[in-house]
């Protein structure tokens, strides 16, 4: 059983809870693999997507996961003007709860926003990405995918490449994979990797060729173009020349290494199409697994007694 009514981050989960979610997700993958991709388990419950940042993929994934559990789903797209109008986060969330939400799935630009809601709501709060803090379901689906493909996580060499400093996906993955016993390496320019991360039990490489030697899993992160303007790297061209994933670099990893990406991809910048569409890429399976993992999370959270 999970210990808390909310999923705020991997930091807040113990190892047993992570394993429970992954095991349960396996059962749900069976469900979404068949013709009738629906079970009545959470029939009559309501999930609300409260997305303060635009996102189609994650939001759709949660929406599908909820519907496959027979829940009703509402999408509350908050555009910035209502924020400017002054309705605070708590007010909005209380309104949503009063509408009958059992689950509130929130994506927000401020780290800690889901934690604020969780304190004040009876509903289960699921963090779909808060500022540069965490994106726990992404890490869980990444771990699920790795376990499925490699049979285990413990002892694997896993490289996360890209804009670590601004990536909540990277942070959640670091917590999750180190917790599960993998050896995690971060690869990227020094301006995009904070010096403090070394204390999080990972190795840091600025040279991609060195960092990829013997790696079992590559997780490529999206490079945001806006960072270019602020002095984090001089040009996307220079970025991709040094840290873009090419077949030559991939060959330095293990022969059966898998390539992952949380999406959306910048083809030609952090990853070339040949690899993204190639046999080692498991990017599309990540998407499928995302639904199974999110179903598992919602199912398990519904069982937590208030």
């Amino acid at each position: 059983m999970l210990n808390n009514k909310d999923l705020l981050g991997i930091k807040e989960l113990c190892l047993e809870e992570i394993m429970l979610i992954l095991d349960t997700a396996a059962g749900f993958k069976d469900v979404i693999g068949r013709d009738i991709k629906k079970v009545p388990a959470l029939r009559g419950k309501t999930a609300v997507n409260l997305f303060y940042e635009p996102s189609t993929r994650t939001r759709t994934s949660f929406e599908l996961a909820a519907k496959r559990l027979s829940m009703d789903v509402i999408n509350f797209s908050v555009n910035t003007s209502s924020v400017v109008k002054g309705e605070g986060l708590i007010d909005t969330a209380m309104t949503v709860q009063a509408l009958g939400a059992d689950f509130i799935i929130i994506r927000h630009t401020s780290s800690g926003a889901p934690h604020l809601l969780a304190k004040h709501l009876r509903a289960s709060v699921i963090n779909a990405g808060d500022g540069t803090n965490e994106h726990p379901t992404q890490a869980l689906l990444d771990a699920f995918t790795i376990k499925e493909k490699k049979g285990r996580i413990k002892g694997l060499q896993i490289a996360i490449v890209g804009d670590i400093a601004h990536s909540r996906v990277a942070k959640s993955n670091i917590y999750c994979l180190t917790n599960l016993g993998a050896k995690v390496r971060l690869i990227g320019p020094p301006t995009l990797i904070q010096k403090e991360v070394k204390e999080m039990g990972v190795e840091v490489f600025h040279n991609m060729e060195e960092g990829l030697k013997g790696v079992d899993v590559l997780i490529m992160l999206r490079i945001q173009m806006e960072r270019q303007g602020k002095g984090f790297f001089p040009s996307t061209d220079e970025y991709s020349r040094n840290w873009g994933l090419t077949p030559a670099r991939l060959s330095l990893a293990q022969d059966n290494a898998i390539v992952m990406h949380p999406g959306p991809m910048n083809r030609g910048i952090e990853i070339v199409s040949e690899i993204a569409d190639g046999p080692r890429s498991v990017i599309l399976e990540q998407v499928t697994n995302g639904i199974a993992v999110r179903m598992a999370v919602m199912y398990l959270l519904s069982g937590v007694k208030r």
Partner: protein
Amino acid sequence: MNISIINGYIIDPSQSIEGPGDIYIIDGRIKEISLKKRGDKKPKKDLITSDPGIRVINAEGLIIVPGLFDMHVHLREPGFEYKETIQSGTLAAVKGGFAGVCCMPNTFPVNDNASVTEFIKRKASQEGHCMVFPIGAITKGQQGIELAEMGTMRDEGCIAFSDDGQPVMNSLIMRRALEYSKTFDVPIISHCEDSTLSEDGVMNEGLLSVKLGLRGIPAEAEQIMIFRDILLAELTGGRLHIAHVSTEGSVNLIRSMKKRGVNVTAETCPHYFSITEEAVMGYDTHAKVNPPLRTDRDIKAIKEGLRDGTIDVIATDHAPHHRDEKLREFDTAPFGISGLETALGLSLKLVDEGVLTISQLVEKMAANPARIMQTEMGSIKLNTEASLVLIDKNKSCKIEADKFVSKGKNTPFDGWTLKGMPVMTICRGNIYE
């Protein structure tokens, strides 16, 4: 108001008084301070019999000190009365043992001209429970571009100038301010923060800020400005006072510059020697303050700085906010801790830990700040208006924020049990219990 306080233990470092004794107040002024030899419990007969209506306060087991003086407080009036008013803020002050406060100019409108100063003085004299001394802005609107009219504000009642809330980023303006202030011989209080480095930071920069995904304010942002300001003070000969010191590097800088003979004083606040950045965990906005809470090493250095005199003053930087404002995402919540009602209790811990003696603590919280601001307060002088606090060092008190007298209930110390609290404050002709 006629009072005789008997059998207390009097500590007034400004007059080097320390010992058991009685204090007699007639018509609201200190008539006599009578120190006793140990064990002698008899009060002076003639003063008691001369006025049978005199109130006798038995201060046995209590310490009597000058009313404390908080040189860094935000009273929020005019403009932000929903956060605090002069009335509620000064009531909180006397509850905390303070008989005098200096209020910062970041009100609305900003106190950058004589009419706002006049408003504050008038309100304070009508509604203030303790003495209120306004601090005027250094620059117009606190924009950091043009100097405000220090002279006219001084005449109206400002006793110091500060742009607190922001730094004066432009070094030339800061230089001019320090030079110009010499005319009026008033301190310039500097909020030291290089805002290009602190940018939109919300907590101390370090491993914890990375883990929590919150933008960090590096310690260097404070240290760089402290260094600059002290050098400018040296260059100009102006009086510089450094507000809310929070880091080890800052203490070291001030210590070495003081050795060079620069006329600089410094203050810290109780939260900087009581809690670390860990209080932010869980995204608790009550721990969001500027400068931010730092680390154990910094706490150690601050305590050492208090002990060896590098830091002259303990002030609260009392920053009340409305409950709704702190009930927001960490990024958007305002900075500040409502500190008047917890300051003494937290500071007495320093005495328990052997960092300061009580007398030294009183220096930091009364004598020194009053002296730096060039007021008559911080002292139990004969024939002056009575301004005292009775402290029970052994009384345990649980901090309950929603019972605060201040409108600001924003404190990270809610639920803490502190030993030692003020039990009576006498000031402006009133007794507060």
